[in-house]
């Protein structure tokens, strides 16, 4: 009996490993193809197509991007600053909203919590939001377009912070800090923040990822390519590969278009777009997994 059970357990283990190795391959291989395509010789791709094992390597795509590095560095800079500014502001504004809501003694707190929850149930959608931001707040073609609409404060994150504050910060701590004469702002920044680092880190991470990966705000609110984040640049090149060359003026543009290694350069710039995330991933991997498990508790 024991033996058959052991062998049954082992075969489950084998099946599990085989399936998971396949799943891992399916998840990773497309990124490998992208990487290989970007370092393949241009004419080899035109002849053989994108391949995992290119017949001939080449670096023309990256050389071309080096020449045009100003555009790319600028886009990186915009992505990075939008991510940092958006995440910091968002975290402060959201925790300042979540902390009072977590205080059981605050009058009307259920009403205010409902105001947050309701934004998750019902929304005005694209048309009124777009008209509001473009016609009334005139956010079009400003850097604020990448930071403010829909990303700064998420009802879901506010509730996540609120429930963590409620469950993990003992009332006694708040009471004794109050007796020590701490006002509510100091209380939040000096007492609550240090006690809530896990949830703050999780929310910052999830929000940071959504800022870095966001391309929708840029798509609808930006026409000025100087403000493009790396995602918007990628998006533009996806639809129009000539864009990379066309941002050059005059006679230089003609040669830029003529020399454009259009098939590999697309893949090379996509690699540049995905690389920062993949490099950072091992460092935040643990928090990311925990964040997902934490998030699933609420929706």
């Amino acid at each position, binding site marked *: 009996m024991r033996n058959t*059970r052991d062998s049954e357990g082992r075969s*489950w*283990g084998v*099946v*599990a*490993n085989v399936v*998971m*190795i396949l*799943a*891992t391959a399916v*998840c*990773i291989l*497309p*990124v490998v*193809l992208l990487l290989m395509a970007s370092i393949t010789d241009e004419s080899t791709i*035109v002849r053989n*197509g*994108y*391949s995992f094992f290119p017949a001939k390597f080449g670096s023309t795509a990256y050389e071309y991007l080096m020449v045009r590095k100003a555009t790319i560095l600028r886009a990186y800079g915009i992505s990075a600053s939008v991510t940092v500014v958006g995440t910091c502001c968002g975290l402060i*504004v959201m925790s*300042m*909203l979540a902390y*009072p*809501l977590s205080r059981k003694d*605050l009058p009307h707190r259920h009403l205010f919590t409902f105001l947050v929850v309701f*934004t998750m*149930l*019902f*929304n*005005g*959608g*694209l*048309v*009124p*939001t777009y*008209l*509001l931001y473009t016609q009334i*707040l005139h956010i079009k073609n400003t850097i604020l377009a990448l930071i403010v*609409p829909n990303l700064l404060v998420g009802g879901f994150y*506010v509730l996540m912070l609120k429930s963590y504050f409620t469950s993990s910060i003992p009332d006694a701590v708040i009471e004794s800090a109050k007796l020590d004469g701490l006002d*509510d*702002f100091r209380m939040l920044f000096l007492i609550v923040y240090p006690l809530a680092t896990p949830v703050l880190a999780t929310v910052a991470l999830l929000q940071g990822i959504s800022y870095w*990966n966001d*391309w*929708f705000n840029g798509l609808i609110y930006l026409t000025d390519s100087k403000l493009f984040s790396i995602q918007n640049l*990628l998006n533009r090149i*996806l639809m129009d590969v000539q864009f990379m060359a066309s941002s050059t003026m005059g006679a230089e543009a003609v040669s830029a278009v003529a020399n454009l290694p259009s098939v590999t350069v*697309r893949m090379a710039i*996509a690699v540049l*777009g995905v690389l920062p*995330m*993949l490099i950072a*991933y091992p460092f935040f991997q643990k928090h*990311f*997994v925990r964040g*997902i*498990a934490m998030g*699933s508790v*609420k*929706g």
Partner: protein
Amino acid sequence: MSGLTIAARADPGRRRRAKYWTLYLMMVPGLLYLFVNNYLPMIGLTIAFKDLDFAKGFFGSPWAGFKNFAYLFATSDAWQITRNTILYNLVFITFNTCCALCAAILLNEVRSRGALKLYQSSILVPNLISMVIVSYLVMAFLSSDTGFINKTILAGTGRQMISWYNEPKYWPFILVFVNAWKNVGFLTVIFYASIIGIDAELYEAARIDGASKTKQIFNITLPQITPLVVMMLLLFIGKIFYADFGLFYQVPLNSGTLYDATNVIDTYVYRALIQIGDISMSSAAGFYQSVVGFVTVLGSNLIVRKISPDNALF
């Protein structure tokens, strides 16, 4: 001690207000943001009932009654986008949940810690990649002249190459696959977190009774995570009227020949508003989505609240 606190001591009503005014002050930026970003657009939904004229502005434009809706539902687009949005979501929900459930159960059978960590982090990678880059990945496989599938797989086996971006019939499968590729890992990790939370004593007792591994999976693991699965299903069904814009717009490269298979409410609203500039059609479609979406979210949450109040939004 400030004068305010001394004065507050004298009057209990004022003392109460004084006690909380900083907390209310703290909430102002967040509430103001929600008011502008979320509540004003809700009021703005009423433009679906207006004949919007930019010269006259929102308030000056005349009311149009249900005219915009009459136009919208007279087109074949209305049926197409409703059908696509709902059917795709139903398939996504079923397919992703089944895949994630299987993967989570199998993940639980992996004994090596190192392998477990590797699998878990790898299947989450697609979730970190933006839809724009996903479109590049899909293009690397499907591009007509240089794609991996056409050049290596189809040409390599001597078959006819396919113009993927012009053939709507393949796209339901492509979109289901891409969506699963991006989202199954995330769902797997959620299910797996719940599986490892199952009381170890249940398995211990089953082992003593001589239950096989397969029996344990069907009689302990599955029933134990059913509440979570049901809850996730309900929350997804609540969102059935919303589609992932990037998936349906970027991944097919906004290809016009594919609209029959790729047009959903979100892409319709976007194209009508940004590309055509037709406020009346886009606002009518947006209103339709918001209202029906509200009903489904509300309905699913009411059911979730019955089953497990902790997981409901309200």
